[in-house]
């Protein structure tokens, strides 16, 4: 690792190795090590023998999948609609997507307590329209957590998808139209296939972020919707079982990196 310009990256390299790589390697070590005895897989064995871990894992997968699907269902039409806007309308729409992206996740999660609570906006609206008599409970269950996560992660899907959509040349669709294709055919045969790599990349990114989500399930789940991150918090801060936490973290890390590898390939395709 020597050559022109290496001096510029050396300081950061040292800091990263000491403050990031070494702790991660140490964590991996804990997951595969029995104190005083050497390498072991016993921490993983313990994981698969305890139903609670498997349940939390299943929970996390299900919630992440639903939140990702909701994101695609809302995000794709939004990005497509924004592509059709022009001038000031488009600028405002972009600003309204970018601003939440940068506002603290805590703030955005917290507001849902007010919106979704028993006396909250949504429930009062539902009762006012007569759709329900009693308040629907959105908070402290999976529904609330899913809504909160879909909300927080939506910009991660919409921004790259929108960027990919505006790169599509309008003349492609015009050519199809001049050859007599119907709007529906143009959309499904030409436009949609061109957006699939960016859509898939965005969905994978959202899914990865969901898997490791901590703040939103903790606040909107009220301890009743345990996801992997909250389980890890318990294993580190409440009942110290560091080896167990390391083992779970390692699984989460490997899954994340595998999905991220797929994301990178799709993202290259989308931006090529």
């Amino acid at each position, binding site marked *: 690792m020597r*050559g*022109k310009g290496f001096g*510029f990256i050396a300081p950061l390299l040292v800091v990263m190795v000491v403050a990031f790589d070494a702790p991660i390697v140490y964590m991996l070590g804990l997951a595969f090590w029995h104190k005083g005895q050497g390498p072991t897989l016993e921490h993983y064995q313990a994981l698969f023998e305890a139903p609670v871990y498997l349940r939390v894992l299943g929970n996390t997968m299900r919630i992440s999948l639903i939140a990702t699907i909701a994101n695609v269902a809302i995000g794709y039409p939004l990005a497509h609609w924004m592509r059709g806007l022009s001038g000031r309308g488009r600028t405002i729409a972009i600003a309204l997507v970018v601003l939440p992206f940068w506002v603290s*996740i805590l*703030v*955005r*999660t917290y507001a849902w307590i007010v919106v979704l609570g028993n006396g909250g906006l949504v429930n009062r609206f539902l009762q006012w329209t007569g759709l329900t008599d009693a308040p629907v409970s959105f908070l402290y269950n999976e529904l609330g957590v899913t809504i909160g996560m879909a909300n927080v992660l939506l910009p991660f899907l919409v921004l790259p998808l929108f960027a990919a959509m505006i790169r599509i040349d309008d003349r492609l669709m015009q050519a199809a139209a001049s050859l007599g294709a119907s709007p529906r055919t143009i959309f499904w045969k030409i436009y949609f296939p061109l957006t699939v790599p960016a859509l898939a990349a965005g969905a994978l990114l959202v899914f990865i972020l969901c898997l490791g989500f901590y703040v939103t399930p903790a606040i909107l789940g009220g301890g009743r919707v345990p996801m992997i991150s909250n389980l890890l918090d318990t294993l580190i801060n409440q009942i110290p079982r560091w080896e167990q936490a*390391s083992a779970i973290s390692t699984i*989460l890390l490997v899954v994340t990196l595998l999905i991220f590898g797929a994301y990178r390939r799709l993202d290259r395709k989308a931006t090529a």
Partner: protein
Amino acid sequence: MMTSSPWTRRLLATIGVFALVFLTVPIVIVVPMSFSSAKSLTFPPPGFSMRWYETLFGNPRWMEAMTTSAILAVISSILALLLGGLAAYGLRRGAFKGNDWAESNFMAPLIVPAIIVAIALYLGLAKIGLLGTFFGLVMAHTILNVPLVMMVLGVAIRSFDLRIEQVAWSLGASWSYTVRKVVLPNLAPSVFAAWIFAFIGSFDEVIVTSFVAGKYDTVPKKMFNELILEVNPTITAVATLLIGLTVLALAAVAVILHRAGRLKPTIV
């Protein structure tokens, strides 16, 4: 453009507007609530008052958390800017083995779930006895913000014409002199944007901080801990201040980059 039926277009616009409302509702709701005179969280607020701001600014523990957050954000964002900026330049302009590997390593804190970074740093810092120290906290925030800096500056450096630097070199300027006198003045707007993003990144960080901060309270950490316990309207005032900070910061970035004609690549 596809000339779809008016029905389809209307449906699309409805979903689009709904999605924008869904995205912004949390922000739109919190601000008026922070000026509410009610003791509980009700929307719309029954009357106007500044009581939650008075409670907030009268609480020494919140004040301390704000000071800690500000100091931490200033130090770690400057460190991230220095380290990340140098590295971004070295990666774009240098040619050495392991270039890609180094870049992936520097961007990793953005991809590895924050909870894993939190646990690894917790275990690592505990091992060397730095858990709960301010130094450990600064290091954690620095590595978390390096990817933001590198993303912004990487794009800026790539779009800066290499030949301008080559002219400086050919006239006998050293690398460091070229960076200081040629590159930096030209990239100043992007450097500022990168610093702002790193500052916000640090000021809003909650997960890693909660794990490694020990007795130190930052604004997000204190907010998170209070939210878990009870719903306290003082939080609406904190949240409004955080939203205000973000809006100001983004506006500053937008103005500066717009003037420099470089708005697009950085925001998305």
